[in-house]
């Protein structure tokens, strides 16, 4: 499998406290040492609790959040440290869809203007073709062409999200980041958007990074899922098996806490002790160890190494092998 995006030791730190002279003394380590491949044509899910850095990682890949160190290789080229101007040719190739569609569409622009605006950064598309292209885009997301001359407030949440997807597709991108793109929608509308996304990925050969906190949606739409905890990815595996046989105690904790919409599979909801650590002062060693029921002394001292099982799938836990053999997490 060919990697479209390769992240190496990516760190995104935000300044937290400064001295009176402006020297930064502590940092919020939102993304801390993430190494990750996103393969061409896949839909990679990213899951974690609020504040674990999943949105920041998505934004860092698109160079919308500052990269503190590390490298981002997009389509074979290093874009991690490119200056603003030099980055422009790459911008159309990667796009983002946000959680709240209402807030991400300009209320004073008609849909046709919104779509045309996105086309402006594509030098390869002739200006005279912009209108036609906008019509095609709406058609792609199953909306009628007469909607071009309406304003965003005239649409429902699901339709607005379709417009956002159409706008993201306008520049003919290779890579799309969906940041909680279905979280604000009702279940029946969410199902429509998920089906639309899957259809577009197959048709246009797109690569997705799908950020969500909802495990059941990730399992439904993604090919692989990465589990993030306190700025670090703790486990990544194919979506079909990750939640059936978790390899990391945190993955299991997330799964067990999820209420399943099936009374026949009622289970005691698993609860996790403690609170999410502060990203300014993450715990030493494995960041999950204060909340982990399998933690031993080594977890508090050393950061666990990555244990690969097959290409594109690994887990970061000291006790992974013994837990896996004994099947305690399944």
């Amino acid at each position, binding site marked *: 499998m060919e990697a479209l995006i390769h992240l190496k030791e990516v760190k995104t730190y935000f300044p937290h406290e400064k001295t009176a002279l402006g020297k930064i003394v502590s940092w919020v380590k939102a993304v801390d040492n993430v190494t990750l491949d996103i393969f061409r044509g896949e839909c990679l899910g990213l899951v974690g*609790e*609020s504040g674990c850095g999943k949105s920041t990682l998505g934004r860092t890949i698109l160079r919308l959040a500052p990269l503190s160190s590390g490298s981002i290789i997009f389509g074979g080229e290093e874009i991690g440290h490119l200056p603003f101007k030099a980055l422009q040719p790459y911008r159309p190739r990667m796009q983002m869809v946000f959680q709240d569609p209402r807030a991400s569409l300009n209320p004073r622009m008609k849909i046709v203007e919104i779509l045309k605006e996105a086309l402006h950064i594509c030098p390869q598309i002739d200006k005279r073709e912009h209108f036609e292209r906008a019509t095609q885009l709406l058609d792609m997301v199953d909306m009628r062409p007469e909607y071009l001359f309406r304003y965003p407030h005239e649409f*429902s*949440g699901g339709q607005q999200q379709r417009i956002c997807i159409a706008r993201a597709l306008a520049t003919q991108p290779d890579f799309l980041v969906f940041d909680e793109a279905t979280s604000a929608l*009702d*279940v*029946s*509308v*969410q*199902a*429509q958007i*998920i*089906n639309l996304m899957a259809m577009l990925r197959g048709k246009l050969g797109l690569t997705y990074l799908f950020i969500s*906190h*909802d*495990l*059941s*949606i990730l*399992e*439904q739409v993604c090919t692989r899922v990465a589990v993030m905890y306190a700025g670090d990815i703790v486990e990544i595996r194919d979506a*079909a098996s990750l*939640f*059936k046989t978790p390899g990391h105690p945190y993955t299991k*904790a*997330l*799964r*067990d*806490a*999820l*209420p*399943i*919409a*099936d*009374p*026949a*599979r*009622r*289970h005691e*909801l*698993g*609860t*996790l002790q403690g*609170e*999410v650590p502060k990203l300014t002062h993450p715990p030493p060693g494995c960041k999950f160890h204060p909340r982990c029921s399998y933690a031993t002394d080594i977890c508090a001292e050393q950061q666990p190494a990555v244990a690969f099982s097959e290409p594109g799938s690994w887990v970061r836990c000291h006790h992974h092998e013994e837990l896996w053999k004994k099947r305690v997490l399944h």
Partner: protein
Amino acid sequence: MQMTKEAKKIEPILRVQDLKVSFNSARGRVKVLEGVDFELYPGEILALVGETGCGKSVTAKTALNLIPQARPYLRGHVYFQGQDLTALPNQALVSIWGKRISMIFQNPQASINPVFTLGEQMFRLIKMFLPEEIKSIQQQSGIGAKTAVRQIATEKLKEVGLMETERLLNSYAFEISGGMAQRYKIALALLSSPEILIADEATSSLDVTVQAHILKLLKKMCRLKGTAILFITHDLGIAAQICDRIAVMYAGRIVEIAETAEIFVNPLHPYTKGLLGAVPQLGMQKQLTSIPGLIPDLSNPPEGCRFHPRCESAGDLCRREKPAYRYAGASHTVACDGPKRSDSL
């Protein structure tokens, strides 16, 4: 399900009958509730599920008569232990609100007063609701009233699993996490051992791990104190996991109500079927189906059954007449006239 069957014999604690309400808006009258009927039995957890704007929260709020501007347009009855809440004056309602029926909301931090410490707010309620308990503690151990109140507060906070109570009582709303704030609100809501607790999307803004704590806590506390919960949620997962019965609401009306297991195995209303088909379930890959069309504009709702424009099996009757409730089992009620046709869906 033993519990609900037994509960059937006892009188419901809350009986909502044909509740209707509408609001004035720039586009005319918005008919938000169009005849809501349900009963809540002592000690049960009833889920009220539905999509945005279907009237879940309005049902709860108007049932308690909490929306003053809705009062002139309120029709129907809400019986709480023989009293019709829709007809009671404010002075009488005040003795019920918070004391015998309490409510917790979606955003716990926003529903705590930001300018008082958590302790100050809690002490006030304890003085209001538990004067006897304060006195008995004072007599037993001979301590001052303030210390007694503090002691009760500490005890109640420990009941909901909050540690470091001293620090917590001196903090303000912004200093605590969402999960802690919701626990605190639950402790407050259950102070007076109310007969009914209304949880309006109480866990929707929380992470799954925190949500699991809160759901377990709610269930435990209510079984302990015999409090009935009306659990308003849009998450069918929560409804399936902790609720005894589920009421499905669509455009201002409850379309189907049944025991949890029954509604998932044998959904009768096309809308319920549509919802269940749209929910992804962990550990089960399936093609998600969606309900065609949009939620109706309630200022100009469709005639007859409000679901008919989106319903595949709608007949002429559905377009003309509002469907009556039909019993489909001991505790299964559905508002759909075309059961035969919709069965084949």
